[in-house]
């Protein structure tokens, strides 16, 4: 692992994914209707993708060997300090994605208005800081922005946004 570049690792993962796709391509039911089987196009694309990933794999391997011959190190990652360094570097996106998935998971309970307001408030406070004054500002921004969006879609555009169990009307 230490001698492999990131590209080599990614190409191996992609090749495994291609294997899965090719297998899945053979599981597609053929209704024996029409000249083009429903599996033909996905299979064709899977083979093309596999060929491209093999080239990518070969390119990255050649890059690895060239670097080994030169004695030069692999491309330095953007972060330092192994897994904990990676986690620290990507902490903000990880938390934001987690909050967003939590918003989606709790949408049937909170509904769009409350869930959306909570999400904006939590994102703002996580990214912008939690000083008392900021909390008030963030709460106001969350209530006004999501409230306006919700009203525009609900009343202006007549979109029935997901409602929650907590307050069934909204």
């Amino acid at each position: 692992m230490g001698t492999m570049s990131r590209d080599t690792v990614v190409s191996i993962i992609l090749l495994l994914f291609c294997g899965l796709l090719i297998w899945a391509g053979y599981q597609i039911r053929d209704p024996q209707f029409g000249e083009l089987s429903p599996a033909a196009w996905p299979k064709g694309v899977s083979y093309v993708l596999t060929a491209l990933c093999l080239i990518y794999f070969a390119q990255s391997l050649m890059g690895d060997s060239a670097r080994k011959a030169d004695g030069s190190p692999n491309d330095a990652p953007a972060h330092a300090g192994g897994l904990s360094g990676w986690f620290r570097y990507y902490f903000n996106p990880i938390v934001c994605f987690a909050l967003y998935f939590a918003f989606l998971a709790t949408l049937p309970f909170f509904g769009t208005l409350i869930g959306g307001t909570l999400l904006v408030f939590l994102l703002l406070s996580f990214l912008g800081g939690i000083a008392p004054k900021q909390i008030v500002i963030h709460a106001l921004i969350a209530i006004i922005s999501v409230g306006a969006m919700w009203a525009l879609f609900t009343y202006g555009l007549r979109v029935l946004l997901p409602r929650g169990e907590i307050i069934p009307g909204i």
Partner: protein
Amino acid sequence: MILENVLAAIQELATFKTILLMTVGAMAGLLAGAIPGFTIAMAIVLTLPFTFGMEASQGVATMIGVYVGGLSGGLMSGILIGIPGTPSSVATTFDGFPMARNGDPGFALGLGVWSSFFGGIIATVLLVLVAPQLAKVGLEFQPWDYFSLIFFALTVTASLAGENMIKGLISGALGLIVACVGEDDINGVQRFAFGNDFLGEGFAFLPVLIGLFAFSQLMSDIRDTTSARKSLTDMGDVSVRIEHRRAIATIIKDWINLVRSSLIGVFTGVLPAAGSSISNILAYDQAKKASPTPEKFGTGHSGGIIAPESANNATAGGALITMMALGIPGDVITAVMLGALLIHDVIPSPAFIAEQPKIAYAIFIAFFFANFLVLILQTGALRGFVLVTRVRMYVLASIILVYCGIGVFSLNNITNDMWTLAIFGVVGYTMRTLKFPLAPMILGVVLGPIAERWLSRSLALSTDVTEFITHPWSLFFLIASVFSIGFSLYQKQRGTKVWTLWYAPVLMLALTVPLFMMGGIVRPALAVVLIVLAVLIMRKIPAATRALKSIN
């Protein structure tokens, strides 16, 4: 005759009520276009019930206002927040957003606004003058030709790949795979579902697009807390004044790009089922290929905004002519408009322009006028929109994240689309981190299903694959595809390798074959011109070869 019809149409439209309706429609279109996840088609559909009580020409004029407004509105969010408001402004984001980030949002917006306007005007003039001829070309297309056209558009991924072509091609192929997931359009058979209901339903295009582009971009913006707490204005000397004069001067200077892109737009619009989501990318690609500085594309190049914005507005004109002349909708939007005309007992057909000149020319004039209207409205609307750039990045990101979710939900009223958005946000962010370009993937997602559909139709008509090379238009696009794939290599090695000297003349000679096959007078004459040009270029090759060898 044309003048008479034009005057009659102007008389029909020049009423306070019609102008007011068009203004409201254009404002609604601008709003819909600027909101990511809210499509022009959706705005047109919502407008349809309002047009029931109007005159046919009034109703269609209102819808055209929405249509042109939507096409132009997409550039606002694309340039300022990096989220293409509509698929027709995807390519605008490639250079518009970097230009805004480089501290020149006013210029980027000016370029977008004026390119849209000029593109629309060029399209209108072309349509009125050469509409019947253009419609005839569209009528010639058969499934083989459509498939080859889409295949050609797919080869564009090679030139969108950027520095690492293999990563770009993988990204494009991944887009094709994403488009395969779920039920196939032809037989309704589930593919790549793995027994999962969510995957079985497939991915809607817009949540994928917004997830890949917007979500991942927002996450990149807030990765570092310090920069997340800055506004776009803190990041540099950002001008909030829309630079009209500078933009117009730049566009006039780059008039070849403008005209070429507008022609691409009209031509793509004329072809049924090939809409502005394709034309803006094709025009961008051609502008990049023709540019003396293609490496600057993607970093905030003016040509990268002029091309897609003029093309997407011009496409609307092309789509309108196909709808009117053949009764074939060029895209979803014109399909809805066709429905509106049918409600008023106006049946578009090849004889429509001759039988209903008043309505037909009213459509032309409305399209022409809508471009002026949108220009005026947009200038005011953009001033407010530019102020968005003064908001702190984390505030903007947090609100947009929720807004994207709500907008995406309103597409089909299903929460699965919101999950798709989030999942492709992760995919997009990972790809960005691993330096895979996202544009080819988008292209794959858009074009994959269309290509498969036309391939299926071609094979349903005949299993003989030689049909793809015996149909002149199909052969034309296949030849163009081969050269398009090799173009990235050509650009890299131009001026250093001898083979690159042969590229242009061989392309010209190759294209003469389908042109001769098409028959008639104009196309073979064009082929003769190409042969003459190729011979002239080839005569200079020996000297150029010697010069190259002496340098090497």
